[in-house]
């Protein structure tokens, strides 16, 4: 046996061992998407492939079809959880310890009745990042793999058959991304517990603005950009704390802020109900107030 034959057999064995964890999700027109059997009666998939909430069916790896209902969805991390009408036999998912750039990976999908495979490598592995919708993803994982039908909601495995995460074509226009298993676990468990993922909320619209030099010098450390309040939700935590339109926030929770995305990042679900000091500039004067972080009202679905 040559090394290439061994590799070929190993990769086919990975598909055979992880394949039974895959399901096909019928919740949109035309081509079904993929999902992962998470528990005997629970399936995780991508949020963006669930285009209808009624009449969802799931095809299991053995070819049988089961009805499913939506437990919850988190558009910010592109994760959705479904509950099967009757439990299936669930194979063990072996989690990968990590992912390294250059590692050989397989993207498994099930866009119908058969498990499909595509070969590639991890092209970038970084730290925690936020999606364009503000969701926290534990690790940045970009994969160099061709995106075929059924890629979304499918599994990314290493050559040993350990699952690295769940694939999504909905998080980046530029390339295929994988949501690490840690994020899938965290979000799925929260969706199972409460049916939604809580987000912190203070009720302001912010715009980065340059601070006058006189004001910049008053701040420690000095900072020349702040976030001006350009809209204010009535009765929201910010207005309850006395924040007004035109105020310019320069620090939040003891950290200077210069980018609206940074603020969004600091408003994670764990912060709901806690207080945070806010330093702001009003009429050239630096003042500090304290607000209680609320929970973002349930948004209308995208």
């Amino acid at each position: 046996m040559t090394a290439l034959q061994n590799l070929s057999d190993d990769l086919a064995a990975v598909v055979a061992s992880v394949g039974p964890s895959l399901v096909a999700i019928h919740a949109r027109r035309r081509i079904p998407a993929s999902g992962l059997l998470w528990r005997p009666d629970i399936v995780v998939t991508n949020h963006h492939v669930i285009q209808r909430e009624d009449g969802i069916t799931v095809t299991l790896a053995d070819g049988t079809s089961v009805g499913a209902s939506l437990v919850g969805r988190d558009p910010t991390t592109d994760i959705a959880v479904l509950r099967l009408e009757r439990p299936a036999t669930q194979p063990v998912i072996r989690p990968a310890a990590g992912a390294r750039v250059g590692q050989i990976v397989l993207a498994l999908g099930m866009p119908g009745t058969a498990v499909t495979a595509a070969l590639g490598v991890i092209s970038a592995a970084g730290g925690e990042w936020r999606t364009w919708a503000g969701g926290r993803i534990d690790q940045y994982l970009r994969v160099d793999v061709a995106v075929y039908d059924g890629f979304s909601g499918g599994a990314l495995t290493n050559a040993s058959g350990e699952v690295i995460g769940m694939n999504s074509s909905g998080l980046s226009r530029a390339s295929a991304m994988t949501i690490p298993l840690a994020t899938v676990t965290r979000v799925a468990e929260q969706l199972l517990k409460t049916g939604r993922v809580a987000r912190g909320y203070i009720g302001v619209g912010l715009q980065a603005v340059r601070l006058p030099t006189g004001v910049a010098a008053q701040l420690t450390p000095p900072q020349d950009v702040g976030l001006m309040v350009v809209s204010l939700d009535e009765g929201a935590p910010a207005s309850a704390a006395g924040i007004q339109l035109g105020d310019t926030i320069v620090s939040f929770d003891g950290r200077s802020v210069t980018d609206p995305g940074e603020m969004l990042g600091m408003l994670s679900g764990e912060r709901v109900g806690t207080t945070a000091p806010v330093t702001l500039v009003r009429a050239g004067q630096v003042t500090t107030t304290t607000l209680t972080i609320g929970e973002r009202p349930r948004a209308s679905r995208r």
Partner: protein
Amino acid sequence: MTPFTSTLPVDADLSGLSDLVRGWTVALTGREGEGKGSGVIWHPDGLLVSNAHVVGESRRMRVTFGDGSEGEARVLARDDQRDIAILQADSGGHPDMPVGNPDALRAGSIVLALGHPWGVPHALSLGVVHAIARDRRGRPRHIAADVRLAPGNSGGPLVDATGRVVGINAMIVGGLGVAIPVNVVSRVIQHAGAQGLLPYKVSWAA
């Protein structure tokens, strides 16, 4: 500059296979330059297999062999439905092409494609089996492979990790390479033989 030589066993296997497969992959060109594609040497006496859509209406095609030598081939039979064409080269004494077993392929099995995409000679693509479509009797009907193909790959071989031909690359569907498995090719050859279209008896594996 010292040429870089990889010591990785997989690299050595791949370059070895590439050289091997090159020996029985040919480039086909129509008389007026039309119908560019690839083909395989199915039998050392010069029996060639390609796609029907590569051959088109041509009766004769120009052949460029793996060693760079050139010749001509006569079209013996064409199955448009299965997209297979059978040709006879004017010269014999070619390398013997090993035929593999498409039934042994699984999703994830490594496959290689050799051909002449966009006229680039002997370009190698590496990938894995994506899925296998089967007929009602469970025999492979199409092999969908996660390999990058382009026009000019048509008619060329899809090879497994042992270096045996498992299919003839025929189409690109949704980015996937789709090959006609050798069991289907064998049936077409068998049929042509039964009709007396072949100049000699060709045995078929698989």
